[in-house]
């Protein structure tokens, strides 16, 4: 499997990382090096093997579906790059 510039651009878009046009060839080449390394996995016989879900067999704990720590709006917003009137503020999303 070889990655071309178009695929590299598509992946960058999916990852929401802006990559300039002129950086795409180098990026595609790096992807190919790493994927070439990963390709080795194709040699392994995985017939009938379950994909690992949890490394330690454990049943996830349940807890009551109730608010434990609420009412901390200012703490939640304290690190926001832009917070207004108790909300996170972002550029306009609806035209």
């Amino acid at each position, binding site marked *: 499997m070889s*990655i071309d510039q178009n*695929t*590299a651009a598509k*992946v*960058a878009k*999916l*990852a*929401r*990382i*802006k*990559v300039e046009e002129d950086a795409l060839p180098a*990026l595609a080449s*790096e*992807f190919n*090096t*790493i*994927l070439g*390394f*990963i*390709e*080795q*996995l*194709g*040699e*392994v016989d*995985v017939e009938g*093997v*379950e*994909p*690992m*879900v*949890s*490394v*330690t067999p*454990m049943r*996830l*704990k349940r*807890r009551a579906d109730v608010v434990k720590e609420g009412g*901390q709006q200012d*703490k*939640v917003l*304290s*690190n*926001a*790059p*832009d917070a207004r009137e108790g909300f*996170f503020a*972002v*550029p*306009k*999303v609806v035209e």
Partner: protein
Amino acid sequence: MSKLNTLRLAEARDALRKGEVTSVELTEACLEAIDAADALNAFVHKTPEIALERARAADARIRAGDAPSMCGLPIGIKDLFCTRGVPSQAASRILDGFRPEYESTVSQQLADAGAVMLGKLNMDEFAMGSSNETSTYGNAVNPWRRGNDDAQLTPGGSSGGSASAVAADLCLAATGTDTGGSIRQPAAFTGITGIKPTYGRCSRWGIVAFASSLDQAGPMTRDVRDAAIMLQAMCGHDPKDSTSADLPVPDFEAMLTGDINGKVIGIPREYRMEGMPEEIEELWAKGTEMLKDAGAKIVDISLPHTKYALPAYYVIAPAEASSNLARYDGVRYGRRARLAQGDGITEMYEKTRAEGFGPEVQRRVMIGTYVLSAGFYDAYYNRARKVRTLIKKDFEDVFADGVDAILTPATPSAAFGLGKMTDADPVQMYLNDVFTVTVNLAGLPGIAVPAGLDKRGLPLGLQLIGRPWEEGDLLNTAYALEQAAGFVEKPVKWW
């Protein structure tokens, strides 16, 4: 008494309790050492006020006869741990200015045990790296040098600042985290001890997530006893982490008898890598002899899927990272890029992440995005998870055959020069974790113990891998190895 900042945790603890020293004195000695060591770039956020306040509180508790296990002991905290009101940015530009409103469970437990936080330690960005060269703070530097050669060496990564600080006596111990070897490789590169416990031993709550199914916190210390003391304080069940194990934590320090008579130690033939330096091979053979002389039974074992551990890791870890790092979007915390007229929310995400993430983080997020994307999910991600099942089974099989612990080299080389790998392709850097990454994939405890010096005077480490949840037994085997190896060398101070 030797200089206070050079004490081991156990020595300082005992001296504090006998009233021979105060926590304020210990803390001041460390703060002074930290201020004189800016050349190492290990501490990236110093917190002297917090440290002295906690030290005074610890002294009061000791006087009142109410001293918990780490009362008054000054330590450093890796920047990956969220610490209330103190910058916690995972060495990333994207978390510039982030001051959490909460404290990670592990650092809280250490504080509850009386430990004194001196500051935050350098690391690779989001713990992605093996040389501490991807940090937004710049490189951390290894206090060790090759004899009289003044070339700067890497302390390893990702917990490079932690390793450098402990080796250079800036703090008595430090926290690290380990996703593919990030505690054990830097420990080996700097002549200190580092243990990654069984997955689930330490709560991951409040630790900036990289690859959630692999990440574990652990202590980085001067010796095995200190590792036992600090691990004890760090682990235990936490309802805030659903993967944290609800199991009793034994008294690790009490288990250090040094008696390993009759223990079965496996030597995995697949870890004999082509091109491995002779010195590493010799050290491994020497370590095997030491354990044998201490009464252990040595057996050759096979872990047939070892070769596929790194490729599986470089699917699973980036996949999880791409998901975990999706939260850095310039909305809730950290840095937002300056936007141009007319930029919408997508441009905000894309610009923020392009300028906030460094090249290695971008690379891994994109690889993760690719292996999880429609059409490739089965071929890469599911296949890697199946290989992971097989890697874990390799270990289960040898443990079922009666093996108590496995001895391997910790790293394929001694510390290398900073900048040395700049022109290498990313895969060359990934090979640093060849001996450690299997342990994360299988969720096992692993410990790196310094065992000797190479010809150029750099420390080399050996790794012991234990059965799940048997950190106590593993620490005891490491203790026997440590006693036999008798590693006491320290870096010559140049900084």
